[in-house]
């Protein structure tokens, strides 16, 4: 008997946490509006959407499950090459279907490699993920007959989306397509992290021992989220191939994994919008710096990383704090109204 109101209250808290915040609506309205408002910027917007999706993928494992990965480019690259090969050999010509297949293939890879990151400390995980990315890059490099080796995968032709929308050189189709994929996958991720499953991940991140003590099957949860994140990264990579009709070894680069961490740190981890906001800032900054000093912009990226760590990550991402406090206050308010309903209706 006594557990029932508790359960109901937990449910209410849950619902309050998962409720849509007005600012989120504004964010996506702006994103959709950019299709019409910034028609000349669709190429960079496409890159931002892809990077945002990639960062979202890392946030799922780093921000929610606490797995530090320094080789997330492995999945990005795998997805990119899968999509490229599917299109090049005309196995699956419909882009959306090819995207899903690439995502599924990458999920399989993520599932297999997830067992490598289950054990050991952060350091072991860093090394293993880095190693996996290196091995994949080496494979892509060696089997040049299949992947084109160092020259990259050439001759990829992407058929029109749904047989209707051709990928134009201004990136209009590419942007709408990428943004659409991003929105769908974001909604899915939002659903995942607000589910009991997502909460269990956060408790694992908080304390593995306690999480397993309260009965959370730690390993299977980590395997699941790692697989999902791999699929996300693979889809991001596939999007890159499809929108640029090209895949090269650079998709596996260590820099890509490292930049991704930076993206997530700029925007803040453990909060789905962090990756998206970080992607916007990172791309704009990169665009600006690359125009300023074409060859040496990694220096400024490096400097930024050093400064961020020295100042403190929490303080850096605290610029999003007002948003979060506002969100939590609204959560709390809606939660209180619901629990007062419970209180009056309970006894």
């Amino acid at each position, binding site marked *: 008997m006594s557990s029932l109101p508790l359960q109901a209250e937990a449910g209410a808290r849950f619902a309050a946490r998962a409720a849509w915040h007005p600012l989120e609506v504004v964010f996506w309205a702006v994103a959709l509006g950019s299709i019409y408002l910034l028609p000349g910027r669709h190429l960079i917007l496409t890159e931002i959407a892809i990077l945002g999706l990639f960062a979202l993928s890392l946030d799922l494992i*780093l921000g929610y499950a606490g797995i*530090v990965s*320094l080789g997330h480019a492995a999945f990005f690259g795998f997805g990119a090459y899968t999509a490229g090969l599917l299109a090049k050999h005309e196995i699956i010509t419909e882009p959306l279907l090819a995207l899903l297949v690439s995502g599924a293939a990458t999920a399989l890879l993520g599932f297999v490699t997830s067992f*490598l990151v289950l*054990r*050991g*400390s*952060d*350091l*072991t995980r*860093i*090394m*293993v993920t*880095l*190693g*996996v990315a*290196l*091995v994949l890059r*080496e*494979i892509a490099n*060696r089997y040049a007959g299949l992947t084109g080796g160092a020259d990259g995968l050439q001759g990829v032709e992407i058929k029109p989306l749904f047989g209707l929308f051709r990928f134009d050189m201004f990136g209009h189709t590419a942007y709408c397509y990428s943004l659409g994929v991003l929105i769908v996958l974001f909604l899915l991720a939002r659903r995942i992290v607000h589910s009991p499953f997502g909460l269990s991940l956060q408790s694992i991140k908080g304390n593995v021992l306690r999480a397993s003590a309260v009965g959370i099957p730690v390993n299977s949860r980590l395997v699941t989220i790692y697989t999902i994140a791999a699929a996300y990264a693979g889809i991001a990579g596939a999007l890159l191939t499809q929108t640029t009709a090209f895949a090269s070894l650079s998709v596996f680069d*260590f820099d890509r994994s*490292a930049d991704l*961490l*930076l993206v997530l*740190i700029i925007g803040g981890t453990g909060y789905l919008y962090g990756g998206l906001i970080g992607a916007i800032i990172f791309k704009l900054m990169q665009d600006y710096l690359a125009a300023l000093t074409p*060859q*040496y*912009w*990694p*220096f400024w*990226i*490096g*400097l*930024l*990383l*050093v400064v*961020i*760590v*020295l100042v403190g*990550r929490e303080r850096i991402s605290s610029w999003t704090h007002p948003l979060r406090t506002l969100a939590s206050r609204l959560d709390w308010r809606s939660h209180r109204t619901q629990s007062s309903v419970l209180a009056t209706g309970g006894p």
Partner: protein
Amino acid sequence: MLTILFDGIAYGMLLFVLACGLAVTLGLMNFVNLAHGAFAMAGGYCTVILVNRWGVPFFAALPLAFLFSAAIGLVLERTLYVHVYRKPHLDQVLFTIGLVFMSVAAVDYVMGSSQVFVQLPGWLQGQFNVAGVGIGRYRLMIIVMCGALTLILQLILSRTRFGSRLRAAVDDARVARGLGINVNRVFALTFAFGSGLAGLGGALGTEIVGLDPAFPLKFMIYFLIVVTVGGTSSITGPFLASLLLGIGDVAGKYYVPTLGAFVIYTIMIVVLIWRPQGLFSRGSAR
């Protein structure tokens, strides 16, 4: 066959000198220093400038390279690294990656992006035959030098007062502090010394592995493998791991050139899975 073994040993010795500083840093402070290769690069470029531009003799340039890298290590340790020790691994990784990016771009800016070589004295070039085994003079010198260095390191660690302090600090920093050992000072000195050794390794390795601005990125994984496979509790572990890696890498590139780099990456992943707890148990227990 024996030539490959010889080359492998020389390469392994070189890797050991490059990486042993990292092993100590990781073991002592549980600090992930991905920028270790940057110190090696500093030593390498220091030698290149001294020898090629200023005409300093090669053997006089080596100690200078050591001092140069050690000085950089000491300064960076005192000014920047100190603030990052207590932060989580993720921060340490980000911080040191940032340093790597900065060093790569800075060297690229100052020295250009092409590969550079050191002009060796004539008597170090070429090779001679002993019982049908081709022995490169330069590689022989590396083996002799690095072997001697390893012995000296082992003696310092096992016989001197500083060595016992260092070992105590690695075993349990807190208790060592309690016994009145100034762990921070021990660590700063060790860090500088390890950076210096890396610089020396970079100077020696220029001839064998080449030197360009991407050096810290290319060799990061090698250093990490040495430390992973060898463990951080002694220097014998990393030493054996370096030899294994050196021989494995050279032999792999020679016998199965199509697989080349797979060999070492696969060794690393297998070891990590085979002994996931044992390798970093010291780090994770703390």
